[in-house]
């Protein structure tokens, strides 16, 4: 049975992609984030601007193309997310 993703889960997925796919250290493009994030372009751009505004992602502009890299605050958020995901899972809940 498929389960809907909560907003916090979607954020964690985007941050995880930005962290794991940034192999060359130049950031991750929106196409990669869209492919892995499984959501519409409009929703993704809105979410990305929110995450950049919150300081969880860093936006890098080169040749008019935006690339995104996880920030230290984003890494801390992911750590807390996985920690409390286990906590919620103990109670049989999902974050």
């Amino acid at each position, binding site marked *: 049975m498929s389960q809907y993703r*909560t907003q*916090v889960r979607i954020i964690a997925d985007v941050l995880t992609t930005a*962290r794991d796919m940034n192999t060359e250290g130049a950031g991750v493009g929106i196409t990669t984030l869209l492919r892995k994030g499984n959501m519409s372009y409009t929703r993704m751009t809105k979410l990305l601007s929110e995450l950049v505004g919150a300081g969880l992602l860093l936006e890098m502009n080169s040749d008019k193309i935006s690339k995104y890299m996880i920030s230290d605050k984003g*890494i801390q*958020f*992911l*750590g*807390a*997310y*996985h*920690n*409390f995901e*286990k*906590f*919620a*899972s*103990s*109670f*049989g*809940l*999902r*974050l």
Partner: protein
Amino acid sequence: MVANLTLIQDILQFIGAFVSLSIAYVSYRGVKQTESTSLLRLTTAFLFLGLGFLVEAVVGASYYYPQLATLTTTVVVSGLMLETTGYFFLAFSHAIDVMISRKLGYALLVFPVITLSAGELSNILSILSFFFVLYGVVETLFAYARNKNPDTLLIAGGLALIGVGTFVQWLSLLYFQVDLLSLVQIIIKEIGLMVLFIPVLNFAVGGKRPNVPV
């Protein structure tokens, strides 16, 4: 003898309040860091349970401070209401599938207050608590069947003990002349809370270090 039983019950109520409020605090830390609504419901549940235990401890204290005795009936019902609300949020954390219309919801809130005596209200609150906990146990067992997490099984066990405790609490209200029943219910609930607290202890003081490869 009665004084000893009251003292033991009072101590257990305070321990219950401490454990519940500790779980609420750990959940609240999760809410602050992740803004998760599931954790918010869990925080609310244990906050109400903790407050319920505290209020019931005040009822116990009325044995030693007779000037509190005039408040006892109201306070007993308030404590039970807080506790039932806590169990409701615990069940609600699992997203109760039953939909209640807004009008019926208001009616359910007002009806008991205006038509029932304190004794009847206490009985209803206790049995409601029992059903909410039972729902929580079933949902948690389903969650265990999915995630096979031993901590989830512990939580289900803890909730089951609390459920038995609430059932005995209901019996103690029916047979209120048997002092032992109210002591037994609080002991069973305390053991249940302790079992719940075992997985939470990992997060309680300072919290687990994130073990995410970064």
